């Protein structure tokens, strides 16, 4: 058995949900990756912040005919993925505040976010 090495993984999410497949793909990779017991963080920058907006209403049967995967972010805690960071400027310039988000996050300024990126072993961009 190889010795287990825990690496720091950061998923950087910069796209709004639904318009492209990036957000959902990222989330699926996070869920699959969670099986490997790594040190996982998620960053939400630019339109990526919109992924966490409360009250998304979709269903396979009505509306846009797509699963409401925003609810899956609330399952991440059960997968031991608990480090979610939101870029303050991206959030504020979109007129959003933490109260508009469906999960607990830490709001980071540029310096904190840049430092977070520097600390990683692997950065995955979506």
């Amino acid at each position, binding site marked *: 058995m190889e010795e287990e090495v825990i690496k720091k993984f950061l998923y950087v999410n910069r796209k709004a949900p639904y318009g492209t497949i*990036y957000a959902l793909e990222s989330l699926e990779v996070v869920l699959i990756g969670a099986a490997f017991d790594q040190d996982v963080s998620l960053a939400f920058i630019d339109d990526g912040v919109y992924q966490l907006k409360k009250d998304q209403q979709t269903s396979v049967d009505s509306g846009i005919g797509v699963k409401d995967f925003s609810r899956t972010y609330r399952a991440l805690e059960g997968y031991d993925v608990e480090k979610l960071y939101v870029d303050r400027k991206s959030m504020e310039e979109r007129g959003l505040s933490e109260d508009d988000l469906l999960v607990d996050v830490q709001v980071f300024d540029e310096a904190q976010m840049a430092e977070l990126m*520097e600390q990683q072993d692997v950065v995955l*961009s979506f």
Partner: protein
Amino acid sequence: MLHTVNKSPFDKNSLENCVRFSRKGHSILLFEDAIYGALKGTRFEALLTEALKNTSVYVLVPDLEARGMRMENVIEGVKATDYAGFVNLSVDNKTVQAWL
């Protein structure tokens, strides 16, 4: 740390954000449509000039030339690189953040 950008700054805010989150000593590589961000005389020149104070900025020459531009059109201080240079940058940096 290496940041890569491949979208035109006129189309996406990737370059702006890349510059916002890059820190002293980082490298930024502009390729595909992002080479437009390396050019003199655009409204992004000030942004890039600012970035050059702390970071090394590279432009992928084949993408530049394909778009009718030459190194003489590029902002002073931006370095030229080719595919092999792109690979070396990726290998030399511990992490790569792709600003898609």
